[in-house]
């Protein structure tokens, strides 16, 4: 084996590292360690001159190993590996010591320098054991799966499909459109949500490169970037999609009614129904739970009146198998149910409604035909809008839901437009108008005669103290600008409930093997620089499933996700993981324990010239190392994470 010649580079990262760690001392220390040929410190190793330094040193000093002590390898490992590769060094002969995130940013003084030295020494010892690994490439399947057909999923689907690559768009509900289809107007421009969304929905329905699966759910995902295998359950609609003309006679004739999910319990729908008039696809669904035929075995009114003969009570769920190269997750959000916040009386008082319910109330195709009415059908004279219900609240969600301030302003405008003499109260903690045109919108509304009360609402009650309050709702709030607790009698209360992760986000995360951040939304690879990538290669997250967002931000993310997928497709190939398991056939007994324990079916015991030995399928191996620890003969090792490598680190780090 050739002599190990290591180059060590200690990064200042401006003052991020050098402000705490004595980088020159670390470099001096590294210089005198065995096998280290050159050790330098430099202002920004990731900069072009920093990388050039590594490249020229590799040539000048015939280096065959490189260690950079800088930020987290999650940040710049690929950068420096590429630099090594450019200079003709195998990228697996590189090691990074994390002296920023896990040292200079969390420790101080001598201790930080001491720890940095230890981390660098451990990296030096480990890199000596590194071996060059072969990087294999596989072709990328040019088809894409998009999960969720809200505005983010729709936008991503259209952008990818426009490049003439196949997109499979899977939506759980009977129609695409998501939450945006439930909105009436959009802030701050007040253009109607349906007017801007419907053309996009229609485009998706008609696009030759989009296969739309509504009323369907993803059941299983296996494989890896470039080659995912997906199983989709297409739930039975009991309506033949090919035959249905979308005439709507079935819905008209159906005698059975139940609460509409789309109108969030405010309106009714039939047992066979279109969720809303602009649904895409324009094919109804029979709800088994409320259909008389499924419950009692009689009726079949829809079948009788359907001229296209599209009703099919015998339809069953279908399982479809798809192969795709990349997956975009756009599963959106749930609006928090404010019932647990008992002091606001949601669920107890008829006229306390959520913001999404109010969107349905003001929508011209909503349950009241766009008229703002109380439960008893009368017009409210005063309305309170309560901000931050469940958001920015230690008891529920500490984060800000980001859109509430703006839509609350929009609501006041819509109320004033319909009922000019109504009293509208905004009860807010802080007004956060961060987007383009938002502050201007706030300014406009403050001139429209809306009352702004700064304070967190304590209670909504029906206990009247004065005659004026009798028979109405009373909002009790502390006005922090005019100190004192005030009682505001109103007819209607709108709760700006928090945006929450989907209730099944946990299962979806497990299905896709992606992570969730502390509040439960899916987690991006880097909070600033990799906002749509996930730690799992080939899977991207866009829209509100990643965190609360307004429509412009969701659309921007969708475009980002689409561009990530398109760059993958246009390159046409990806590198396979090189740090996989390897079997020492001389040691292997062929016992098959590795085969039993592996979740990815990578090892297989085969007969090789009359001897039973285990063989690893490298395309399937994920490099988790479970087999290596399980093997009783210690015949399996993981490339790049061998026993010698880990033990050498343990030795250095326990002692220094």
């Amino acid at each position: 084996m050739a002599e190990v010649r290591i180059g060590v580079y200690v990064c200042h990262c401006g003052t991020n590292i050098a402000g705490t760690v004595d980088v020159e001392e670390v470099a001096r220390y590294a210089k005198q360690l065995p096998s280290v040929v050159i050790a330098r410190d430099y202002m920004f190793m990731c900069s072009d001159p920093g990388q050039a330094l590594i490249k020229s040193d590799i040539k000048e000093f015939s280096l065959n190993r490189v260690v950079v002590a800088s930020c987290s390898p999650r940040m710049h490992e690929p950068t420096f590996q590429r630099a090594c590769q450019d200079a003709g060094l195998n990228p697996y002969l590189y090691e990074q010591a994390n002296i920023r995130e896990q040292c200079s940013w969390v420790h101080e003084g001598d201790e930080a320098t001491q720890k940095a030295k230890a981390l660098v020494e451990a990296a030096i010892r480990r890199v000596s054991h590194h071996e060059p690994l072969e990087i294999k490439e596989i072709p990328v399947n040019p088809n894409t799966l998009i999960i969720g057909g809200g505005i983010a999923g729709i936008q991503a689907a259209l952008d990818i499909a426009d490049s003439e690559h196949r997109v499979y768009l899977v939506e759980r509900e009977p129609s695409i459109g998501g939450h945006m289809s439930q909105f009436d107007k959009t802030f701050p421009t007040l253009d109607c949500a349906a007017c801007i969304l419907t053309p996009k929905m229609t485009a998706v329905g008609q696009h030759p490169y989009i296969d739309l699966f509504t009323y369907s759910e993803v059941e299983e995902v296996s494989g890896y970037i470039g080659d995912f295998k997906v199983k989709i359950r297409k739930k039975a609609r009991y309506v033949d999609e090919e035959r249905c003309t979308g005439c709507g006679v079935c819905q008209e004739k159906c005698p059975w009614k139940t609460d509409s999910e789309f109108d969030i319990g405010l309106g009714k729908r039939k047992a066979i129904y279109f969720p809303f008039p602009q649904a895409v696809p324009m094919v109804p669904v029979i709800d088994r739970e409320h259909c008389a035929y499924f419950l009692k075995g009689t009726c079949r009114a829809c079948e009788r009146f359907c001229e296209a003969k599209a009703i099919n009570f015998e339809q069953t769920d279908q399982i479809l198998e798809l192969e795709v190269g990349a997956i975009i997750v756009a599963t959106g959000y749930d609006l928090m149910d404010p019932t647990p916040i008992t002091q606001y009386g949601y669920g107890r008082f008829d006229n306390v409604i959520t913001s999404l319910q109010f969107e349905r109330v003001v929508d011209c195709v909503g349950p009241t035909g766009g008229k703002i009415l109380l439960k008893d059908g009368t017009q409210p004279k005063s309305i309170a809008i309560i901000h931050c219900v469940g958001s920015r609240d230690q008891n529920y969600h500490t984060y800000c839901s980001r859109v509430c301030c703006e839509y609350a302003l929009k609501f006041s405008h819509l109320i004033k437009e319909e009922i000019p003499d109504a009293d509208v109260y905004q009860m807010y903690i802080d007004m956060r108008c961060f987007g383009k045109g938002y502050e201007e919108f706030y300014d406009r509304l403050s001139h429209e005669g809306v009352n702004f009360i700064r304070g967190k609402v304590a209670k909504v009650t029906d206990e009247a103290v004065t005659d004026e309050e009798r028979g109405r709702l009373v909002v009790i709030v502390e006005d922090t600008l005019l100190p004192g607790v005030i009682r505001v009698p109103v007819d209607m209360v709108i709760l700006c409930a928090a945006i929450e992760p989907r209730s099944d986000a946990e299962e979806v995360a497990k299905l896709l093997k992606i992570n969730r951040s502390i509040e439960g939304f899916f987690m991006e690879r880097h909070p600033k620089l990799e906002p749509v990538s996930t730690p799992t290669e080939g899977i991207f997250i866009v829209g509100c499933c990643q965190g609360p967002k307004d429509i412009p931000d969701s659309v921007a993310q969708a475009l980002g996700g689409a561009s990530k997928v398109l760059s993958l497709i246009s390159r046409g190939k990806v590198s396979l993981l090189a740090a996989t398991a390897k079997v020492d056939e001389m040691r292997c007994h062929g016992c098959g324990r590795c085969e039993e324990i592996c979740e990815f079916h990578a090892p297989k015991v085969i007969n090789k010239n009359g001897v039973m030995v285990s063989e690893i399928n490298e395309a399937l191996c994920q490099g988790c190392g479970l087999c290596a620890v399980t093997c009783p003969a210690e015949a399996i090792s993981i490339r790049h994470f061998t026993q010698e490598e880990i033990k050498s680190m343990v030795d250095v780090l326990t002692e220094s």
Partner: protein
Amino acid sequence: MNGFNLSRSIRTRQLLQVRRMRKITEFEPRIIAFTCNWCAYSAADIAGISRFHYPANVRNIKVMCTGMIDPGYILRAFERGADGVLVAGCEIGDCHYISGNIKAKERVERLKKLLHILGLEDERLRLEWIDAGDGRKFADTIENMAGKLKKLGPSPFKKEVKS
């Protein structure tokens, strides 16, 4: 010169001296943390990004999964003088490799029994599940572990126990 300032400067000097002496004599435990690439290592990075300070007693070793940690690594750390070992991975059910952390849990629990027989206190080997975004938990875990180990004193496995 007024007396107040003088006495204060003397007190400050005394305090500093006491602190310096304590630094020499106070036992600083060494913790080896095996952190999985997907969750705990990322949590440690998030702790850094959020500037959650924690004691510098810890040394992280990144592994791809807690399932790849050979019990031999943990024994080696104790043999070489570590006062505590932390094994930190993804929450059960969140493992990037499906079941690696479940296997790790079984192994660590078995190893704990062995270490107990060998006379090592239970607190010295700790298993934690730390979500990828939970920098706070990583910092708190180290803080808490370092505190407990300080009270326990040096590991009985240390070749030369300085008392």
